């Protein structure tokens, strides 16, 4: 039977992309049998699915995850990296401690599940290694360890644990079906079976029931189906409810009593959209009062088994990556799921997300990703670009917490990124760039990032080339928003302010001979700028100029009337200049 799976909101699109990826993977690795290799086809509106292939999906699903998150591969790469470091004699002691910890951590995890003599003896022997002379011994042990990790049984167990407990459960589903702690002892086949029972089996039956209700001419067919699959809880209920009904009455019942699916509108919904289906935005069924359907407090939002299945593929459709949240000391590393959503055809959604995933895997910074994804911006595709947005969420099932960010990409930003995104690379360290780009994408002013950044530069005497670029790029974005496309004049103004800052810096250092005075002035100016106190800023500025006995550029008047530049740009560009150390390489970069 062929079913149409239409694209919709980002949630369902994530699932569809995931489903397609799993199918493709299965087809390539011959997990999906030859006769079904055309069962999933891409259509402009989504996916056409032949339900015959469904029973083969669970196996492909787990094998896909097994490959994607292979712990053996990750651990081996890690060990390779460590062994390189350990070869450095001076650093030997430090790295040895780290490497021992990594090995014993993974080792204990394995021993928890398997008795493994080789591993145990290696763990013991590694403890004995203390001197640099033993480095060859260590290398030898690591070689053996890599083999141990790569043993299919061990890799499988550790990898399953990882993607279940680090990704699927906290980010997407909670403790449902094979994710429940009671299913921890299941082996590979056990997982496949559990998947089949709780997801595939209902879909197959529900779809069959739908077709029988629509096509059959007598009640017998329906009754015999319900009879045949009596181990399906739902069918037992329906059997009771439809016992003495005629075909017409049953059809009427279906029409009036059974809801249609929230995500695939033509499907019958026997399930609900709740926490276990998609935990980032789902709510437990009996607590979802404000999500009730048709104002009926008893009925949460209806969902078909098919939609439930598709959502199970969401973790594979999205891109999973670590992200630092917060600035400076308050950063927290969190696992995020990201997705690129557009109004384009399914093929394009798929392609954009594959691209997104590749870039993330290469650890490309966000601005690069954005600029690459909008490379195809052309006049004729403006509509699509207008509707391109990024979405990412962090979710923690146990603490019932979700951070969901939408990053819209309006036209002016698309153009900006296309032309200037590589300039943002000068914003270092990476965290500031990421923050900068994300607040821009969120439609917010990145000015707070710049304030933090400048403060950091004053405190840690970092090069202020980065903040200067940040100030300039922020100004460019503001100009783009206003519709200005030629940056020559306003860039010149920003540069002029930066240069003014540098000159004053030189003058102060020449007269006082110390950096301290510059630092204190920079702090004062920064505080004034941050507080939006134009008067206090101008006051300080006039005093500096008077003390150095130089004329003050009228460009500073923008701090008051903001005719050509906004106050923040004036202030921050000047401060960045004031803090600039004069290294040669910097000057080159500034010309960018």
């Amino acid at each position, binding site marked *: 039977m062929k079913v149409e799976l239409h694209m919709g909101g980002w949630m369902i699109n994530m699932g569809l992309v995931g489903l397609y990826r799993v199918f493709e993977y299965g087809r390539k690795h011959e997990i999906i049998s030859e006769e079904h290799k055309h069962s999933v086809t891409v259509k402009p509106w989504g996916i056409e699915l032949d339900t015959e292939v469904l029973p083969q999906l669970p196996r492909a699903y787990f094998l896909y995850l097994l490959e994607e998150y292979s712990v053996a591969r990750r651990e081996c790469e890690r060990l390779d990296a460590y062994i390189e470091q350990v070869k450095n004699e001076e650093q030997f002691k430090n790295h040895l401690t780290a490497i021992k910890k990594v090995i014993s951590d993974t080792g204990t995890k394995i021993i928890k599940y398997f008795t493994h003599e080789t591993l145990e003896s290696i763990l013991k022997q590694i403890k004995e290694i203390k001197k640099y002379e033993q480095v060859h011994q260590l290398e030898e042990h690591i070689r053996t360890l890599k083999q141990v990790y790569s043993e299919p049984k061990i890799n499988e167990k550790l990898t399953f644990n990882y993607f279940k407990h680090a990704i699927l459960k906290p980010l997407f589903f909670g403790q449902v079906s094979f994710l429940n702690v009671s299913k921890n002892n299941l082996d590979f086949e056990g997982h496949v079976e559990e998947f089949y029972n709780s997801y595939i089996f209902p879909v197959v039956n529900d779809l069959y029931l739908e077709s029988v209700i629509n096509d059959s001419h007598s009640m017998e067919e329906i009754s015999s189906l319900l009879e045949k699959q009596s181990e399906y809880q739902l069918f037992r209920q329906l059997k009771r409810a439809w016992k003495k009904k005629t075909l017409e009455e049953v059809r009427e019942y279906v029409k009036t009593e059974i809801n249609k699916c929230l995500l695939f509108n033509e499907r019958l919904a026997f399930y609900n959209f709740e926490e276990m289906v998609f935990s980032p935005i789902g709510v437990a069924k009996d607590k979802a009062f404000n999500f009730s359907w048709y104002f009926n407090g008893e009925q949460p939002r209806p969902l078909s088994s098919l939609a439930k299945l598709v959502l199970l593929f969401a973790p594979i459709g999205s891109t999973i990556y670590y992200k630092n949240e917060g600035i400076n000391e308050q950063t927290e590393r969190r696992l995020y799921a990201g997705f690129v959503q557009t109004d384009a055809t399914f093929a394009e959604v798929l392609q954009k997300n594959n691209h997104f995933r590749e870039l993330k895997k290469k650890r490309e910074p966000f601005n690069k990703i954005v600029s690459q994804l909008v490379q195809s911006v052309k006049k004729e595709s403006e509509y699509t670009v207008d509707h391109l947005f990024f979405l990412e969420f962090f979710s923690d099932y146990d603490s019932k917490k979700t951070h969901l960010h939408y990053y819209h990409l309006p036209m002016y930003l698309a153009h900006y990124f296309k032309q200037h995104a590589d300039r943002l690379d000068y914003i270092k360290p990476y965290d500031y760039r990421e923050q900068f780009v994300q607040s821009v994408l969120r439609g917010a002013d990145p000015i707070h990032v710049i304030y933090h950044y400048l403060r950091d530069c004053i405190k840690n005497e970092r090069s202020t080339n980065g903040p200067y670029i940040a100030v300039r790029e922020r100004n460019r974005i503001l100009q783009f928003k206003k519709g200005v496309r030629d940056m020559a004049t306003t860039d010149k103004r920003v540069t002029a302010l930066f240069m003014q800052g540098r000159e004053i810096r030189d003058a102060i250092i020449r007269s006082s001979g110390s950096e301290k005075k510059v630092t204190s002035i920079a702090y004062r100016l920064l505080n004034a700028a941050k507080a939006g106190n134009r008067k206090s800023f101008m006051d300080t500025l006039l005093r500096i*100029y008077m003390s150095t006995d130089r004329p003050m550029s009228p460009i500073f008047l923008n701090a008051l009337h903001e005719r050509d530049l906004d106050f923040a740009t004036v202030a921050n560009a000047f401060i960045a200049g004031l803090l600039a150390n004069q290294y040669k390489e910097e000057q080159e970069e500034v010309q960018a």
Partner: protein
Amino acid sequence: MIGLDTLKGNEIELDELRVVISSPDYEFLLHLYNGLQSKKRFEYKGYEFIRRKIVMGEEKKITSSVVIFRTLSPLLIEDEKKIPIAPDDPNYEKHINYLADTILYEYRGRGLYKPLTVRPIRFKKMVIKESNHQFTEKYGEQQHLYFTAYHGLFHMSGEPADLQLLYQLGLSKRRNQGFGMLEVEEVKE
């Protein structure tokens, strides 16, 4: 302002001259500063001035509604008929209010937020003798303009924002001729 040394007839002999300019308008101050920067020598009526150092004075922040002002240059208060009003005149406060209201209206497009009350602490009468080229053309070199103004200390209350602006702008007639510059002696809590 004048560091007074010796008076020789109609001339005052000085070693140096300090000019204080006060304004709430940074734009004006910036242009003024840049102008002074670009010109170091000035000539005026055959006298020569060399600009030395430019510094920014400390401006006090008026945070309460009561302040004591000291005049840095005398206040010139006149009534509708241009007759000078002395601080002990019962209408003095009324005229000060009218003047302050006009000054603020001119600067920010809105007059006083709250009427001022003025209480003189100590005032000294001062007659200013002046001339300008228009007056000289009409009446000759020998004739002079005389302004009866008052110098001293006084107590003023009103809206802090008004007081701050009056402090920056000056409070008097003929402010651009140097009348009416104020200094905050004390901000009462």
